[in-house]
């Protein structure tokens, strides 16, 4: 892997989720697109500000669920009707009410696993290295009590001086430049 040099982006630190949300909206309005927010816990409004709600996780979950329900139901039908038919108290071999619960469990299992691993995959995880961990304040605060907005250098609008000035007028606790 080639060694990369340069700037990853500018990292602004905030104390509250409200300030972070406002800053994100402001950055969006100013035309920035390649940016990311980092919060110690999920902040719904920040996700809305970044417009990351419309992603493919729900679709993957649905597909997983459908796969689970079909697999389980067909498997049960095959076992009970063709593979190993047993007469249970005179009930029909194809007794669908009894199949519902295992089929439901498989729906949940497959949907859950698809959601979880789909989310990992779409997020590009696992990721053993991330440049932001080079910033000491990020290392200490991102999982604790700090809220970060990072404008990434690959954004066409990114300019080291202007972007820093832009972030500073949003009154963050600090703005630091993060190396790749």
């Amino acid at each position, binding site marked *: 892997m080639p060694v990369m040099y340069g700037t990853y982006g500018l990292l602004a630190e905030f104390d509250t*989720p*409200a300030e972070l*949300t*406002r800053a994100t*909206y402001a950055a969006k309005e100013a035309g920035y697109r390649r940016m990311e927010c980092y919060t110690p816990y999920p*902040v*719904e*409004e*920040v996700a*809305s*500000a*970044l*417009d990351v*709600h419309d992603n493919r996780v729900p679709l993957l979950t649905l597909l997983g669920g459908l796969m689970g329900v079909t697999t389980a139901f067909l498997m049960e039908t095959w076992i009970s009707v063709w593979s190993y038919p047993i007469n249970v*108290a005179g*009930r029909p071999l194809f007794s669908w*009410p*009894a199949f*519902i*619960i295992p089929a439901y469990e498989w729906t949940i299992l497959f949907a859950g696993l698809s959601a979880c691993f789909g989310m990992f995959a779409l997020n590009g995880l696992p990721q053993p290295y991330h440049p932001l961990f080079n910033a000491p304040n990020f290392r200490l605060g991102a999982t604790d009590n700090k809220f970060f907005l990072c404008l990434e250098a690959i954004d066409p609008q990114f300019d080291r001086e202007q972007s820093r000035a832009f972030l500073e007028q949003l009154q963050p606790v600090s703005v630091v430049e993060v190396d790749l």
Partner: protein
Amino acid sequence: MAHAIDTHGHAHGHHGPRVLPADLSAPPVVNLWRSRALIVAAVFAVLAALVGLLGGPNGAAHIMRGYLLGYMICFAFCGGGLCMLMLQYVTGGKWGLLLRRPLEAMVGTVPYLMVATIPLLLFGKGLYLWERFPTIASVHDALKNGLINEGQAHSLSWKHAMLNPWSVFVQMLVVYGFIFVWGSLLRRWSLQRDLDPNRGTMKSYDYWRIKTENLSGIGVLIYSIILTIVAIDFMMSLDINWYSTMFGLTFLVGQGYVVLALSVHTSIRLSKWEPFATILRKTEQYDLGKFMLAFVMLNIYLTFGQFLIIWSGNQAEEIPWYLNRIRGGWWVICSLDFIFHWVVPFMMLLSRRLKYSRSKMLALTTWMIFARCFDMFWLIEPGFPDTARHFHISVGTFAYLTVPVAMIALWMAYYLTQLKSRALVVVNDPHTVEILEPEHAH
């Protein structure tokens, strides 16, 4: 979704907490709604009378069945409202603060339900065998004359201690006594709490929180027993032989389903005017939507659970209840019930966008109340000899439309009167400050 919050947030352009309007009482439009409810009640009462006249004896019998449907729905609003009120006191949470006054208004309608119980006790002979044959001697006579079969006679004698008119009367005294006492106390305390001279202090918050929690904790337990009694007396005993230990619980969850639908509907409707315009935030509306989804899922879970257990057991005393409700064309109603009552709300409530949208949530909550009535139709109508395993529409069937609509509309008028009688926002509660905070996006 981002867009809704986005436009909303930027339109205001200020970041401080919002301020409650000076006048916290219900908007004048509630009077208009009440007049409309009364008109609907009157029109449908006339239509119900027509059904009774045109339908002959069958029509008259159906009037009582429709009456039972309306009664059970109104009871769900009133009793279920009390249960939800106690639940929000026990659990805390901002959603409860929003719904508290609508729920208190629902509980305040208990006199309506007390009066509405009387016709069931006096004219329920066509509905309940225990009312038609109130004594052991009359049961024996009925068996001799071939009016009932041996199984029914056995069940009637066996269940006589609980299911006879006087016993049910006493049970109803206990049921409504409980709802009245608990409802009145919680309603009174809620007003006293707002007038507390120490209001706004931690001491006052703690005092009222502990006081209401203590009453509500035991109240939720008692209510689940009380509700089971009502469900057994008025619904399960339509088929004297049948029993299910899950029955009371399915009604408890069904009440949560319909009470949330009505209270969310009320809140969203009121949010066009002050004070709900200020206090109903998107965040809480979204949370309430998720809460509704939980009830929708629990509802199908219990209903299907009951079916699966009875289907697996395949016992002669249990399974006819389902066969009566599936065979002879009833499978159509049963399938529609499954779709209306579960598939539609479940699919809709999965969507984030829908839970944030006011107009769509209004439509969905209306639908859920209708679906609950439809479910009740499926529970009641196949329970009689003329309709079991034989679905057909007669003039009498329309009693299921006219009588409940008249009853529910009249109940609504009472509910709206109760809603008008006090301020719509609870002031002395730590959540009031939180609910006035701007959402992060604002």
